[in-house]
């Protein structure tokens, strides 16, 4: 079991112990269960020992307030990382003009390597990895600065391969230290790289890839599939990020194409294309809800439901807004929402029955 997977399970156990203590206190208040003094002391001693051992090994949160503080630390480390990136970029821009070309190149090459060393140092000193996360983001920023400024100094033609290098670098950081921030940055780069490659294959200029949403579809589908890979089982804590990012990419591309079919590569009439993507959108959202419920992935089910609702409301807008009085339109939207609420309630009940022994 990897250290991070161990930490995740340790945190889950600590959460269960906290819930167990609360429930035990409730049961005793209601008179449903009474432990004698010896049993209570033995249980409390066991729970304390377990929690102390988990904290010692994995530095987990054992109370609700600790959890809140941890969230604050995560946010602070993200903001700190972004600010450090900006500081590195602006510092270089401020002094660029005073350096000759060899000195510029040296600074650009050395900065990401020094920050990489700092990330490793922080990771060795601190198990929670907040500082390592902050520094990893700055390391990634320094590498982005490195290639883009070297390209500027020597006036090189922009290349999509830079996106591949940045994405690979970010993934190396993410998997080495099990950090989500560089993983998110890496996924953005790699999905963009795939989209730029498709744009180029279709005969367009690679920089114009954001104009064609279809170029993002394959990248999004690949991300959704990654958690199923055998290798990924050791990094299960990354799976939700892959799924969420993949689904968002696919849904967003479909949403844009369902509204503006002219942005498609396919040689099909615009109105027919839009209808095709609307159907694909509803089917994809439905599939996502079904898969989410079946595999107990709340994020997948919620994202699918939200996308389904968005597509539905957009259809209503196109069908009815022009000829229906405003108050009737919103009344219909409200009735549909109530209908969806009832449907989800029924679905929730059925899911509850399914898991009941």
């Amino acid at each position: 079991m990897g250290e991070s997977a161990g930490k995740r399970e340790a945190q889950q156990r600590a959460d269960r112990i906290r819930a167990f203590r609360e429930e035990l206190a409730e049961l005793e208040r209601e008179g449903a269960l009474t432990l004698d003094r010896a049993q209570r002391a033995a249980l409390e001693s066991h729970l304390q020992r377990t929690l102390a051992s988990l904290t010692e090994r994995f530095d987990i949160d054992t109370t609700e307030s600790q959890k809140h503080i941890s969230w604050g630390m995560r946010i602070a480390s993200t903001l700190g990382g972004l600010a450090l990136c900006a500081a590195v970029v602006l510092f270089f821009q401020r002094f660029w003009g005073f350096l000759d070309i060899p000195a510029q190149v040296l600074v650009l090459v050395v900065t990401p390597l020094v920050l990489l060393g700092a990330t490793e140092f922080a990771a060795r000193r601190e198990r929670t990895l907040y500082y390592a996360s902050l520094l990893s983001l700055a390391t990634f920023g320094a590498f982005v600065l490195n290639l883009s400024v070297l390209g500027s100094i020597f006036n090189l033609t922009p290349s999509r391969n830079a996106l591949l290098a940045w994405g690979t670098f970010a993934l190396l950081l993410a998997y080495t230290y099990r950090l989500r921030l560089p993983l998110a940055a890496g996924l953005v780069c790699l999905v963009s790289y795939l989209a730029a490659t498709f744009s180029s294959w279709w005969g367009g200029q690679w920089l114009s890839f954001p104009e064609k949403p279809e170029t993002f579809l394959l990248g999004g589908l690949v991300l959704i599939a990654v958690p199923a890979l055998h290798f990924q089982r050791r990094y299960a804590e990354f799976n939700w990020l892959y799924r969420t990012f993949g689904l968002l990419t696919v849904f967003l591309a479909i949403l844009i194409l369902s509204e503006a079919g002219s942005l498609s590569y396919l040689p099909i009439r615009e109105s027919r294309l839009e209808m095709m993507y609307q159907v694909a959108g509803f089917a994809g959202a439905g599939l996502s809800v079904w898969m989410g419920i079946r595999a107990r992935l709340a994020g997948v089910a919620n994202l699918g439901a939200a996308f389904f609702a968005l597509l539905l409301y957009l259809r209503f807008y196109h069908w009815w807004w022009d000829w229906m009085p405003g108050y009737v339109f919103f009344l219909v939207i409200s009735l549909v929402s109530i209908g969806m609420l009832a449907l989800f309630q029924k679905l929730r009940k059925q899911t509850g029955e399914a898991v009941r022994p």
Partner: protein
Amino acid sequence: MRRAGITLAAVLVLAADAFVLLEAAYNRSGSPATAIELTEWELRLVRPQRESTALFLELAWEPAPGRFKFEDGPGWFDQAKLEELGYDCRLPLTDPSARTHYRAMPAKDAFVVLEYNKAAWGGGAEDRWLWSRLLAVDAGRGLAPLRKKYSDMGRFLIIPGSVRLIYSEKWDANLRSYAPGAYLRGAVVEILVSEISVPPSERRVLGSLTRTSEYFTAPDARTRGPRYSAILYHGRNHEPWIGSCRLIAAAQR
């Protein structure tokens, strides 16, 4: 795993940098493919940000994006040229979906031919005095045929850029609709490396000057003309660099 990850990340940084430096060295090896002296009108001084000490010269060419008028017609960049560059123009312009179909076509890579015509816009009206004397005169997919056709290296720059199909039509404000007679034309929308860094050796020449966009607003800019010239080289990869810069003395203008 951790040691391997850090090593790989460091190797990736060094390998990517080595690749970039080798590319740059290859581009500048041997004698330059083109060398042309241009003035401030064609190479405009820009500073990226308020705090930045970096200095760039931005290549300007005509017709600049947004300069076209419907009445000008497609000129040399007509439908036949667009098809030659790989655009599929088979859908008739009378088709109801023609506008959205053609407007959604993405930009394409092409070699662009820019002709340096010092006498262009001479004595022109309006703001033409500040227009670039580099004119886009042709575009193609292959370099060799263009090199053969435009062999004067001191007059023609053949460099990578991107072109776009434009569905051109005229809006009739009275009828509040588009007038008939739409046509397809192309436009050079970008030169792939249009912002060229000024090497440290030339900063002493240009460092004290204000940005060209600010200079254009000066009352005497029109009579004084450009403040500097620079030699622009292009190498084996068609990537540019600035050679030497010199200030143009007032008496010479």
